[in-house]
């Protein structure tokens, strides 16, 4: 996935001379996850450059650059370090288009590696997406696989709205074939969710798993094991968190009657709550059980030795399916 993002950024830089990449260590080093590897060498230091060490500065100056007509792609080095920039993001980036009565557009992309499961130290495993989804004016998306990564980053850069682009770092080294010759115009829409495991219409589906980013793989593995146990589960990759594209979720839940949301972020106030609320409203008469959530617990992210207990796992997802069926 890291390479797919790299290629996608490269295409974006090629396609539009106004695209800039800025952040800590994105230049010669190529980023701590090598996502910007080789880009400074090929596109020069005016377009791909290291910033001083200051997240607020990165986003704040990006606002100014966007005002000037550039399309900045900012990198925040790790999820836990976005908070110094949070004020610039929610007070400024999110609101300026609205405040200007539509006169000003800020086509900024803020890339943030997020999520845990890599054995890291503090502040390197956070899932802060809810703070941004809750902020009107921002778009929030997350890729779960290399193919989506390649297309979504290009689409995000082309969008005139500001996009927070979450990259699940535990999946950076996952590999998949990506057809880079296809046209961007034909790519799957940026703000659309996708059914990644569909149960054929002639088989009964036991439940709908809703996931995004790193938990998509978890959900797919759970579905694989469930299939071996004789239960078919549908899995939906949300991809877009703001806006949420839940129509496929509703369609699925109307058939299964059971929905389970899976995310690494802590439970209370997480996106699972929003999704549960909407699904309940839209699919009320179809629900055989309440919408369940498999999430991190309401504790700060624990030390690495314990993160496997904290994060949603295949077992916890299947446990939730079992509990759902008891209603």
């Amino acid at each position: 996935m890291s390479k797919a993002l790299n290629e996608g950024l490269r295409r974006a830089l090629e396609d539009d001379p106004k695209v800039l990449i800025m952040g800590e260590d994105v230049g010669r080093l190529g980023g701590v996850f090598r996502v910007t590897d080789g880009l400074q060498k090929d596109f020069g230091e005016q377009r791909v450059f290291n910033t001083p060490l200051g997240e607020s500065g990165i986003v704040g100056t990006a606002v100014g650059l966007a005002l000037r007509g550039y399309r900045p792609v900012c990198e925040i080095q790790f999820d836990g370090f976005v908070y110094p920039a949070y004020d610039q993001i929610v007070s400024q980036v999110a609101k300026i288009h609205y405040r200007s009565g539509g006169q000003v557009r800020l086509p900024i992309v803020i890339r943030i590696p997020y999520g845990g499961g890599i054995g890291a130290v503090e502040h390197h495993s956070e899932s802060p997406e809810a703070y941004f989804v809750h902020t009107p004016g921002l778009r929030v998306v997350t890729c779960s696989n290399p193919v989506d990564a390649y297309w979504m980053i290009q689409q995000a850069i082309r969008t005139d709205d500001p996009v927070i682009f979450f990259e699940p770092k535990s999946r950076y080294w996952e590999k998949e074939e990506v057809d880079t010759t296809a046209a961007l115009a034909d790519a799957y829409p940026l703000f659309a969710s996708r059914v990644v495991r569909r149960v054929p219409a002639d088989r009964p589906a036991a439940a709908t798993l809703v996931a995004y980013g790193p938990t998509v793989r978890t959900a797919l593995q759970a579905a694989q094991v469930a299939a071996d146990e004789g239960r078919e589960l549908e899995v939906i990759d949300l991809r877009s968190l703001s806006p949420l594209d839940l129509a496929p979720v509703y369609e699925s839940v109307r058939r299964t009657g059971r929905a389970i949301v899976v995310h690494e972020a802590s439970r209370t106030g997480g996106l699972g709550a929003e999704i549960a609320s909407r699904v309940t409203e839209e699919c009320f008469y179809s629900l055989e059980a309440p919408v369940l959530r498999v999430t991190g617990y309401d504790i700060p992210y624990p030390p690495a030795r314990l993160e496997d207990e904290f994060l949603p796992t295949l077992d916890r997802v299947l446990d939730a399916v079992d509990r759902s069926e008891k209603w």
Partner: protein
Amino acid sequence: MTRMREFALPDLGEGLTEGEIIKWLVAEGDLIELNQPIVEVETAKAAVEIPAKWAGRVVRIHHPEGATVLVGTPIILIDTEPDAGDPPPVPDSASGATAPAGSGASAGPSEANGSRESAEPERISVLVGYGPRTAAPARRRRVAPEPSTVESRPSASSTVEHQPPVTVAHPAPVAPTPVGPPLAKPPVRKLARDLGVDLRTIVGTGPGGSITRDDVYAAARAASQPDFATGPDFSTEVATRPSTVAVFGPNREHRIPVRGVRKLIAQNMVASAFTAPHVTEFLTVDVTRSMRALARLREHPDWQGVRLSPLLLVAKAVLLAIRRHPMVNSTWSGETDEIIVKEYVNLGIAAATPRGLIVPNIKDAGRLSLRELADALTALVTAAKEGRTPPADMTGGTFTITNVGVFGIDAGTPILPPGEAAILAFGAVRPTPWVHKGKVRVRDVTTLALSFDHRIIDGELGALFLRDVGSFLSDPEGSLLAWA
């Protein structure tokens, strides 16, 4: 301390999954010190030197320069006690598979734990990042079943009234009235609303006292207000009358919303008709002797005031015939691939009501005396007329009789109630020319029509059963003597 130690490629930088071996800095047989650099590895992030984790002698190098190995793959075996005599023998096969240099393909982790030599090597420690999940995803075994977390509904009393022995698909609801708001999930609530059923009056049979769909259906049947007609006794003349006149709208159409009991009945009919292959056999019988028997019974002192109709004798005939042919009193169970033959007969009597068809049944009718049967029929009819049929009487039927004669017709091709194998329709009793003892006489004649589920009952069995019913009705006294 374990002597022979495998060293596996660790995650060298926050979530890396593999590394390429660039250069071995030691060779097999070398003596090495703790922390001595032994190999150079390149990862997606960096080229790093790995220091030896233990001092000792290099026994085996598992992957050559140029190989790409997954995090967690053992790459070198070290004898940590080189002075302690010969090391245990090591098999030749390298652990895992290697990839061609530079191809980017990956090797799998081996099952080096205890599989290689007689001395147990140390368990492979793959720390943070934990490497790629190359083992097929598997679920940890659970032992204890989870206790149900479904909330329970409190009830006013926990005693169970004594019920006559009844084996039904659902346990009979406990008689005490429920307290607290009814527990039902959204689809059940919608169903109740569509059927016009008040959830507060239902005792749920689901987990924790929750109300199930079947509970709602049962209540819907019971709640109907039938204008129950068993028909005039002995009447062979039924005046026809116009049925309800529709009021047509300006486009000359009248739309009737399908809801409630009608919808329910329709669903049941569809479920039955298109699941069980229906076959109907007909038998026209001379029931003169039955009519005369009823007349004599009416005069009997023990039977004063008892309501009598041909239905009673038809019921008795059916019960005796079932005893002789139990197979007709069964259920086809698709989920378990079984035919469940029942010894008890819950005899359903179809009743036409303005709200539609209901089929209350008499539990274990086969054990009732003729008098008890008559009383039960009376009670059933009365309750149905008054709309008081208890929900329990609405479920669990095993055989149904439908009296189409009250409508003045001879026969029909009735549809099986879901879950039953056979249904008997009997028509109007009419004076009819009949060959009796070789001469044409006017006798009381009726037609019996038996529809049955051809998966369970074949033509011959249906015929045998039907003829038994017919025999009884032709000669009730003789049949009672012979079979009762």
